[in-house]
């Protein structure tokens, strides 16, 4: 009798990388539903278009690299990147914006660095920043939230939306407009209270800004689901949201005309919750240890606030995440956990004594 030789452990849990990715996809559903409810079909078209592009790109590159296409596609990582990018891009943006962003994400930011697990930067955010800088007009046009649509105007239907995206049709007047963060940024000279009264984006909102507050709550819900499922720990999201809330509270300045905005507005606007639970939790490009991820999250929260308050861009999650990606290996060097039987935490670069 001869038996197979395998090393221990022989038992394995049922959790697979593909399951992890599927759960992340599932967790985007509440946010995506809120987006569609508040802004129409655009985001779903983005997500589908980005997904198809991503899968085609991933398959092509994996094939060029001489690897098994089926094996690498089955990890669902390309789909996660595509869905997150599709969510981040403005609804009803021209198709080529989505395609260019996705190709850049998958081909340049992911596969050229070695594929899944080897990319130093978050692929979705690389793609997002490339199109943001390249096509500023298309990227800063956002759909008007449901509550603010003019009388008698509704979001374009599915067919009309497809025409807008692929055919270059211009949407009806009043269908597109600024985002709350954008509007707030361009309302300097007014007290925060005045902005909240005069700007319908805030006047029609319950907590932070019409439409956007629901989208952020949707991603918060999905994120909490992922924490409950132990897909990631609380450290990164809490670090980012805590730092953002603390900074906006510190600089609130009683709502003066130079105030950068309230903590509630910052937490429930723009890509805050998407970033906190779906972008900075990308394990590949983030710091590694729990303490490292807490610091990494705090860094992103600080950067988001600094760019939103004093930078040129109304939102800043993509830039903040990419800058923190640079810092991740450095954070890792100083945030090793204390191992059993050791009195001190060590540094990654420490050398054995003697």
């Amino acid at each position, binding site marked *: 009798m001869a038996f197979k*030789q395998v090393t*221990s452990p022989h038992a*394995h*849990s049922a959790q697979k990388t593909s*399951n992890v990715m599927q759960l992340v996809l599932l967790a985007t559903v509440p946010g995506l539903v809120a987006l569609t409810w508040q802004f129409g079909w655009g985001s779903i078209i983005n997500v589908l278009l980005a997904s198809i592009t991503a899968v085609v790109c991933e398959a092509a590159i994996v094939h060029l690299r001489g690897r098994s296409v089926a094996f690498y596609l089955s990890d669902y990582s390309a789909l996660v990147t595509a869905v997150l990018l599709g969510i981040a891009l403005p609804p009803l943006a021209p198709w080529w914006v989505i395609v260019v962003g996705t190709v850049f994400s998958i081909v340049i930011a992911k596969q050229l660095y070695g594929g899944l697990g080897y990319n130093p930067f978050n692929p979705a955010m690389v793609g997002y920043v490339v199109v943001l800088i390249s096509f500023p007009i298309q990227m800063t046009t956002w759909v008007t939230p449901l509550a603010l649509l003019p009388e008698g105007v509704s979001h374009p239907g599915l067919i009309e939306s497809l025409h807008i995206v692929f055919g270059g049709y211009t949407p009806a007047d009043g269908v597109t407009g600024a985002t709350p963060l954008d509007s707030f940024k361009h309302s300097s000279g007014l007290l925060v209270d005045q902005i909240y009264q005069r700007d319908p984006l805030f006047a029609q909102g319950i907590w932070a800004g019409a439409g956007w507050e629901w989208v952020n709550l949707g991603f918060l819900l999905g994120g909490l689901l992922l924490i409950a499922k132990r897909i990631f720990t609380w450290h990164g999201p809490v670090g980012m949201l805590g730092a953002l809330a603390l900074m906006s509270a510190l600089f609130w300045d009683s709502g003066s005309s130079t105030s950068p905005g309230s903590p509630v507005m910052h937490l429930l606007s723009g890509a805050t919750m998407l970033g906190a639970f779906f972008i900075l939790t990308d394990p590949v490009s983030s710091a*590694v240890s729990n303490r490292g991820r807490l610091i990494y999250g705090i860094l992103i929260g600080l950067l988001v606030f600094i760019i939103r308050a004093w930078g040129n861009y109304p939102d800043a999650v993509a830039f903040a995440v990419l800058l923190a990606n640079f810092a991740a290996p450095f954070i890792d060097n100083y945030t090793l956990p204390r191992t059993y*039987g050791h009195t001190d935490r060590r540094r990654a670069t420490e050398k054995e004594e003697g």
Partner: protein
Amino acid sequence: MSQTWVTPGGVHPPENKHQSLTQSIGVLPLPEKLVVPLNQHIGAPAIPCVEVGQKVLKGEVIAKAAGTVSIPMHAPSSGVVSAIEHRPIAHASGMLAPCIEITTDGEDRWIAHEGVDDYELLAPRKLLEIIANAGISGMGGAGFPSAVKLNPGRQRPIHTLIVNATECEPYITADDSAIRERAAEIVEGIKILSAILDHPDNIFIGIEDNKPEAIEALAPHVEGTGISVVSFPTKYPSGGEKQLIYILTGKEIPSGKLPADLGMVCINIGTTYAIKRAVVNGEPLISRVTTVTGDAAGVQRNYETLIGTPVSHLLAHSAFDEKACSRVIMGGPMMGFTLPSADVPIVKTTNCILAPSYAEIPDDEPAQPCIRCGMCAEACPVSLLPQQLFWYSQAQDHERLEAHNLFDCIECGACSYVCPSNIPLVQYYRASKSEIRKARAEKVKSDHARERFEFHKLRMEQAEREKEEKRTARREAALQASAAPSNPSSSVPSSSAADIIAAAQARAAAKQATPEQQQAQLERTIAAAEQRLIVAEQKLAEAIEKGSANQSVLSAAVENTRQKLEQAKAKLAELTA
């Protein structure tokens, strides 16, 4: 109820313990042949003291301990020694090792043996001797000789004795079933340990809360003994020595230290039973409880198994279905190792033979890339960063690996268990550990070689220097010899050379201090010169006679010799005047 502490990390694999607990501990028919490996423990292999063809009785010593950290081996049954040779043994590498094979005679006849009734009256040293002679090594894992472990020395008094009944590996129920059926003897074994260790303040039996029957079985026996049974939530790997000590005491064993350094001893509960049998019944360790389990075994239960029983014998009596079996594991599914064949024998540390079906333990799926999800770090019971270790292990970055405390990894497999990418992490760590050990050994070797070379160089340089010094001295002597006698003006020495010559002359003068010596030397010179003069004159006469061409040279030599003779005579006259 004692306080317990919670270790970080850990995993909850399916326990799968009920399958083998439906029946009591069974006994197998006597195997035809028993193969006793000489090295079943940490330390030096035992040395055979029997010969092929020799008859042995059950319990007879067949191999003696080789030094302090070693144990003797005993015949597990009566019969004839049929071979002493290398055989395949239970080892992850499938290596061959020296074994003694006994062909059993079926009588299972014991050698005369006798226990001690009142061990309390015996000195600890004497008890340790009994344990050592009974060939007892730790039966939980590594197989460290128990008598050595129980004798930590006077400078390290033991205040806490921990009996490990955790049995946290899935499937294994050897300790559980032994406690259920032999609680009284186990507790007596613990009392013996207590006597050896001079009655430590705390005696804990650490047990996971998934063994309520065992806890219940122990309860009446520990009452009033000062032994506390401490149960804690089931989590793998709570049964690791370091983990259990933390759970029960809240203390960590510093990296590189032993529990004894903190005044603690941790011993497997199966070993306490063997100690009781050795001391009270006089029986050496020749059998143990082994679980046979896994769905490829038709009968899943525990057996009191003779050491040396071939695994094939166990499987044959367990309705084993080879085709349905994905692999045969010695130990549990987390830390056990696969057997290359069923011909290997059961040893003192074999707590389980696991024969899982493909449904239970399927073939490994191909590994996917690490996405640094961090689930491994969450599962690690010693707070390492397995994902970073994996990264540096691939890069063979030994410095980083050591900075990330690779050597504190206990290889429990929790990281690999949770890894969603199916990466065989532990295998990478094992490989890196041996690479680093090898590199360290090579460094020591090359350091030695370098030291040797440097010493050799130093010695050669010194020898060269000494030679050079001698040469200089000889040169000086030669200079002095040519300069001292008559005509220092014949050469034009440099000032320093002149100094040297002057000094040499002074030395020469000092040497010829006494007039008696000078006179004697001059007289010898005169005698020699007279002799040479006679010879030279004879040669000159011969040359003139023959009409040779060298007459002038010879006459000059005669003249020269005569002059020197006259000079010497003049000096002598001067001296004696």
